[in-house]
């Protein structure tokens, strides 16, 4: 029963936080607030952006030890910060559906890799994870940048606003990762961890495919 409670908490967390993710409200906050508003909206976006969180869940599953987690999350943060800041500052954006479809692919990729898909089904070793996390970080950052640019950022202080939004993203990421890391590490001590591992990673595959189909259908019907 306790395990089920933890289980529910981990995966339902974004559901409860999601109630805050209303674009019009975000725009109102950005329009009326200063740089702190950008931090707030950035944090809220990360907490309600379940594709980013699903990818991070996949990364955390693969890692063992606090040092590993810090290393990989730092690389992911570096990757998404580069494209978020540069993309927004230079006014470069991509189709929202297509970039989110690629982010969905990153979720599929992580589930597939965690299930040993490369070795088991393709007969090849997994690509270097650190490199892949950095590459997917760049893609997630471009998605975040496209999202930020969909708001009216008003006049002036563009770089400061982008950096504030990025700080919010990092704060949201840390806030979301704390319970995720706690739950996964706690479960590792349980006998049912193997079943949990398989269930969670097959779920990542299914959720990733669903998000991919959803974004592509949005792209082709737009």
């Amino acid at each position, binding site marked *: 029963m306790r395990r*089920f409670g933890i*289980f*529910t908490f981990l*995966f*339902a967390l*974004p*559901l409860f936080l*999601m*109630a805050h*993710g*209303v*674009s*019009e409200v*975000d*725009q*109102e906050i*950005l*329009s*009326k607030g200063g740089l702190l508003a950008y931090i707030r909206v950035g944090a809220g*976006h990360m907490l*309600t*952006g*379940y*594709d980013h969180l699903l990818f991070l869940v996949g990364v955390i599953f693969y890692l063992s030890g606090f040092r590993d987690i810090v290393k990989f999350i730092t690389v992911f943060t570096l990757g998404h910060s580069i494209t978020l800041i540069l993309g927004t500052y230079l006014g470069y954006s991509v189709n*929202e*559906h297509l970039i*989110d479809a690629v982010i969905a692919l990153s979720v599929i990729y992580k589930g597939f890799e965690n299930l040993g898909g490369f070795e088991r089904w393709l007969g090849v070793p997994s690509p270097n994870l650190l490199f892949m996390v950095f590459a997917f970080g760049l893609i997630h950052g471009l998605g975040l940048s496209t*999202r930020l640019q*969909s*708001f*009216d950022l*008003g*006049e002036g202080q563009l770089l400061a606003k982008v950096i504030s939004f990025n700080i919010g993203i990092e704060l949201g990421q840390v806030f979301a990762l704390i319970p995720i890391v706690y739950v996964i590490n706690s479960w590792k001590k349980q006998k*049912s961890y*193997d*079943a*949990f591992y*398989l*269930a*969670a990673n*097959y*779920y990542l595959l*299914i*959720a990733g495919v669903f*998000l991919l189909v*959803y*974004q592509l*259908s*949005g792209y082709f019907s737009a």
Partner: protein
Amino acid sequence: MKKQTILIVLGLLLSSHDMYFKPGAYFLEPNSAASIELYNGTFERSENTIDRNRMIDVSLVGGGKRLAVDSSQWKEVEGVTVLDFIAGDAGTWVAGLSTYPKNIELAANEFNEYLEHDGVLDMLVWREENGELNSDAIEKYSKHVKTIFQVGETLTDDWKTVLGYPIEFIPLENPYDLHSGHAMKVKLLWQGEPLANQLVYVGSEVESHDHGDGEAHSHEGTEAEADHEHDALQQLRTDAQGVVTFDISHQGVWYLRTIYMALSEEEGLTHESNWATLTFQVGDGHSHHATEVHEHDNEDVWGIPSYVYWVGSLLLLFGLFYWFNKRKG
């Protein structure tokens, strides 16, 4: 100076002779019955109606087409000239009206008073500096008004249509693509060219009742006026490119007014003025793709509420866990 500005602004609010196009509702449903009121007086109150034979042009622009308005579509209601029409297809529409010039003869003191009350300060200063304060005036004047309103949800580019009036405001952004907190830029054209360093007054009112229902409201009389709170008039100037910039500080109806007056070389005249106004409403903003489908928001996917997916996800996850756990056991 501050006191003088307050007096001028007060004068503009209470006793100017502007003309405004004021839609009964700035947000309309496609193909619904609608009306636009032509106020001649202040933004708050129309003092008299305008005869059809004074109108050179009355146009509705939408869907890339400019439609001439039939004079039979006008009526008078207690000092207000009202245009009834059927809103067209979804889009951002422009309505414009231009009047024939009329002449007015004023004694020097009346003319000075009018320049002060209506905010034609550059001409007043010129008269002071050139010792003309005691000169009577015969002025030719004409008025050119525009309004921008939104039909349905679709934003179109008709808002930037140049109607070709002697003087007219052209927004540089669709007002229905904006929301409060944005700095709006509007270009002022005189004979088709940007008019630099021209005094422009910007005012607004905060709506305390919903204009989003697509129905026309009457704004006549004191009852309707009590529904609005008016912000202080801003006195601004166009820059070298003829652009005036102001902050959209809140949602509601916004208006711009200017009077461009010059000395006249025409026989029998001393001055010529052209008056321009523009009205529009700022809502909650329709742009920035915020209303487009995005899976981060609390929106429905394929018409199914988000919570269904989340409950489904939990059930799927639990089902997978149960299955793998049982298989292992």
